[in-house]
């Protein structure tokens, strides 16, 4: 279990006041006195507006940055003092297209990061094979990442995040900028990782629906502090709002999903048969069902 108690992080900014003047020093508290837990097999969500401290919290929990104060233990080990040892147990997956070598193929990327975790030989190759199948990139495993669509890069990030088989996974807006179908696939994968593989997952997202669908427990952050926490039911019961009976027309997302579903039904077979991701053709749809 990850146990963070009274974590705070204050960044010190040095700002230039002119060419020949001394830089001024300004302290910016990013996270203030946060306590949270992450048990294995559970998905814990952190919600908040931009600048609420979500990413800083993730980076502290993943031992990428050190807290200014407070304690952090991972399976009983002091993660601040022994940050190199706990790195074997954690990994981070961020939304976006960075964090991969674009000139390398998916397989080469995973092999490189696997080697950094001390994996090699048949064990590593088997794991790469399984992960590529899990994220639906087997067919394009030898294509350079620069030719991938955004969704495929995101899936490769997920495979990279799982290469060391971490007990705890930190997901920082993993569906950022993805279309609804890919986002849905990735949400299903996250759920399976927690339920079937017993991974403790900490998820930050701006999408409330995503948090509602996935998270067992939620923390709400504002200006670096936790302003609310609890299960979905506990949060709902905070204001004792009576249930609302709403008559609603199907929203545009629903319509769009239906259109895509119908099209995918008609074309999926031929697309899968077509195979690899050729340049200029979005391979998204070809591998979309792989998850």
């Amino acid at each position, binding site marked *: 279990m990850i146990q963070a108690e009274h974590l705070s992080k204050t*960044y*010190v900014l040095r700002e230039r006041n002119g060419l020949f003047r001394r830089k001024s020093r300004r302290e910016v508290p990013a996270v203030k006195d946060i306590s949270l837990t992450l048990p294995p097999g559970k998905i814990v969500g952190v919600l908040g507006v931009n600048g609420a401290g979500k990413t*800083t919290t993730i*980076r502290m929990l*993943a031992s*990428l*940055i*050190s807290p200014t104060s407070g304690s952090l233990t991972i399976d009983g080990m002091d993660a601040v003092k022994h*940050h*190199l*040892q706990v*790195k*074997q147990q*954690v*990994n*981070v997956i*961020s939304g*976006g297209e*960075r*964090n*991969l*070598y*674009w*000139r*390398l193929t998916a397989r*080469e990327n995973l*092999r*490189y*990061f696997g*080697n*950094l*975790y*001390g994996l*090699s030989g048949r064990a590593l190759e088997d794991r790469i094979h399984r992960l590529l199948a899990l994220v639906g990139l087997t067919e394009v495993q030898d294509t350079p990442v620069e030719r991938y669509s955004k969704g495929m890069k995101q899936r490769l990030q997920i495979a*990279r995040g799982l290469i*060391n088989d971490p007990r705890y996974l930190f997901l920082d807006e993993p569906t950022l900028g993805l279309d609804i179908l890919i986002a849905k696939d990735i949400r299903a994968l996250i759920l399976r990782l927690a339920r079937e593989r017993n991974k403790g997952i900490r998820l930050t997202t701006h999408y409330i629906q995503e948090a509602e669908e996935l998270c067992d427990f939620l923390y709400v952050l504002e200006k670096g502090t936790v302003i609310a926490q609890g299960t979905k039911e506990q949060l709902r019961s905070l204001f004792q709002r009576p249930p609302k009976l709403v008559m609603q027309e199907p929203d545009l997302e629903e319509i769009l999903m239906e259109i895509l579903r119908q099209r995918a039904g008609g074309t999926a077979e031929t697309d899968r048969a077509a195979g690899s991701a050729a340049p200029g053709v979005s391979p998204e749809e070809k591998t979309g069902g792989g998850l």
Partner: protein
Amino acid sequence: MKNIWLVMKAEIVKQRRHDYHSYFVWFSLLLWPVLGFLEVYYTYQPFSFAGRGGIQDSQDLLAFLGTGYMGYTCFWSMVQNAWSMSWEERQGGTLEMAFLTPANRLAMHYGKALGALIQEVWMFCCFCLFILFRTDTLRWDNLLLLPVFLGLLLLASTVWGGMVGALCLFSRDSSLIMDFLETPMNLFSGTRIPVSSFPLWARALSLLFPLTYCLQLIRMLLHIGEPGSQMLSSFLGLGLCMAAMIGITVWVTRRVERHNRETGELNFF
């Protein structure tokens, strides 16, 4: 130990696939050093050396410049590679991902250095070896010196590359290191001009560059120029320099990681 080698191998393979992926890259890595070499050779050729710095004729000059440029290219490629990798990896976010792993940091630095060294300089080294054979500096009877001097160059350059790589992690503005090292290293370490021809102040400066000792040793091994040089003192100088560079690399690596964990700057670009 197995993990250290694994990390180094991973860095070498990654560099080859990432940076040295086309014939044009290989060609440019050969062309520019050769042009630099020829420029200096034809600049010096009209002048008489009359034994200054142990150089008697144009054959000696070729051998002197051949070893000088070979050493300089090895050391300079380390600086270029450290800077470009640190910048590219910051921008791509892969630097932070590498530091998210428990991989041995020193192995990462030395792996990057060795990977770049082997791939950046092998073509130019072949050219220089051709020059050394052509000038009878390397012959069948002293061919056993070849692995000794190549090993020496490889080791010293890798240790140097590891240190520069660690220094480049301190800041995204580490291009300053390149500006600081390019001309001084070329001038003072005896790449193009024998150190014995320098005034005293310049000789003192030359002692700061590990390349100086490395070139002195290689030239002594191959009996090129620099009369009166002491093998033992150069060997001790290089040994001390390498020990200091390894010490600096260990210290800087720890400081960089602590600094980046405090500031979160590993992700900035």
